[in-house]
């Protein structure tokens, strides 16, 4: 296999990793900061992809991005209202919204489960023509993903240090304390979920436009893949400033895609992606748990074998 072929694969993995890292950053906000596992992520990702595609096909490539983010925000708002105002458990709220979004997404795509953007002007084709005669000509996909990721990290680094950001972090860390600081946790949860889902929507929008198509299944399993990336990123940059941890999230997403690409080269069939991401999530969460249990287990084993030897 030639170097250029390998570089091509790596580049694709990087682009995919960067685009999907926006979803990881969304979970960084909802899962790591707010302590809410937002299971509406899959549906919201597809929603962003569908809305972005429909707006782009209608002839507004730039408008597609704010439109997808607005759709994501709305979805986050509904998830938040269900869990903060209607007494629905947060996991269940995510699942309910996710299920509902399936129908919404098909409706958005004009009662079809597939949209094609081969001849559509998207943000990617726009930049491609813009960069046509420059040295960066082939890098338009990378540039857009990189720009989006940088902006989102910058936003998070600034936002999470504002009073609202601090309140959101405290809500996930110690809700009792938030209430006694005269901040309404309902408000902070709602804002956090809205912002996070805006990023998920953006992520879906960019992935769809770079692939030039949307499928109703584009987001399925995304929450597990993003969680796997998040946990990988956490092991690399678990502690430190928000910005550093956010960069860790992107790193985790890229590493996940690189490993996955390598596995594909080793003849792992493509349909294994979701099983692999599930296993990674299980390992990443169960690993530290078992590590904590190990001393107890050892002592128990020692005691048992001691008895057996008598």
């Amino acid at each position, binding site marked *: 296999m030639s170097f250029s072929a390998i570089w091509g694969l790596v580049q694709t993995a990087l682009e995919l990793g960067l685009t999907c890292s926006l979803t990881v950053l969304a979970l960084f906000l909802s899962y790591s900061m707010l302590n809410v596992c937002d299971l509406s992520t899959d549906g919201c990702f597809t929603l962003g992809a569908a809305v972005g595609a429909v707006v782009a096909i209608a002839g507004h490539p730039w408008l597609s991005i704010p439109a997808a983010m607005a759709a994501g925000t709305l979805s986050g708002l509904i998830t938040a209202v269900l869990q903060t105002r209607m007494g629905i458990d947060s996991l269940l709220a995510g699942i309910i919204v996710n299920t509902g979004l399936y129908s919404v997404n098909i409706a958005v795509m004009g009662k079809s489960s597939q949209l094609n953007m081969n001849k559509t002007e998207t943000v990617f084709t726009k930049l491609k023509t813009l960069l046509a005669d420059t040295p960066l000509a082939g890098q338009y996909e990378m540039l857009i993903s990189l720009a989006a990721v940088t902006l989102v990290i910058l936003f998070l680094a600034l936002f999470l240090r504002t*009073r*609202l950001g*601090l309140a959101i972090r*405290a809500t996930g*860390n110690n809700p009792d*304390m938030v*209430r006694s600081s005269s901040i*309404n946790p309902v408000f902070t949860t709602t804002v956090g979920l809205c912002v996070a889902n805006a990023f998920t929507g953006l992520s879906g929008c960019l992935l769809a436009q770079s692939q030039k198509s949307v499928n109703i299944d584009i987001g399925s399993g995304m929450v597990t893949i993003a969680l796997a990336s998040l946990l990988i990123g956490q092991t690399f940059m678990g502690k430190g400033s928000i910005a550093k941890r956010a960069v860790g999230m992107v790193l985790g997403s890229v590493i996940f895609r690189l490993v996955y690409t390598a596995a594909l080269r080793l003849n792992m069939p493509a349909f294994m992606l979701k099983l692999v991401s599930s296993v990674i999530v299980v390992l990443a969460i169960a690993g530290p748990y078992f590590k904590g249990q190990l001393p107890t287990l050892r002592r128990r084993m020692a005691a048992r074998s001691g008895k057996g030897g008598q």
Partner: protein
Amino acid sequence: MLRLQNISKTFNPGTVNEKTALRDINLHLEPGDFVTIIGANGAGKSTLFNAIAGSFLPDTGSIHLDGQDITFLPEHRRAKTIGRLFQDPLRGSAPAMTIEENLALAAGGGGWLSHVTRAEKNAFRDRLALLGMDLEDRMRQPVGLLSGGQRQALTLLMATMVPPKLLLLDEHTAALDPGTAEKVLTLTEDIVREGKLTCLMITHNMSSALTLGNRTLMMDSGRILLDLKGEERRGLTVDDLLRMFKENVGKALDNDRMLLS
């Protein structure tokens, strides 16, 4: 300052777990009152605090704070004017956030999207120095690294950062070792005196119930049995208190922690 009128609360009414926690409580606090509360296990002391802080809506009665009817005000809105400390020192601060960030949240002020200013940070540093725990040099460390006593002292600072109209202390030194408890108690006295705060403090330590503050309430079965202040309270001993309890309730005080301390 604080006026409770006919406050009653029954939990799980109509079930086998029915429990009347507060029975027709009437209480009036003057501005600057520092009231200590003692009582047996399950006397309704913490429930009284929950009612004042708005953790639940009482079945009957009304609560006024500084002339404002707060009976129906949600908990987080009351927190603007009511500071509260719990027995559990971990309850009042966010462990994954730094000391500075915790203080910034407690200080409030500024818009939602404003950052903590340099001037504020300096103010935090000065306040922390008052604790005498060297926390002012650790402002960027996560609160989770602090000891229980340090965290409770920090929580005290946070609760009084914006001087509250009412400070509720729910056995806030009970989970600390004796030396630290003493220190946090002294800090409490200083902060309450300096801020001229109105304060209610539940304690299981009978002698500090008599030495601290200017008024002592004794509760049992959801009622305020004794309300000691002024001349009547002066010169009272722990033995007097125990005797008064027995005379009023007809049985000995059964708060084991109280008797052991």
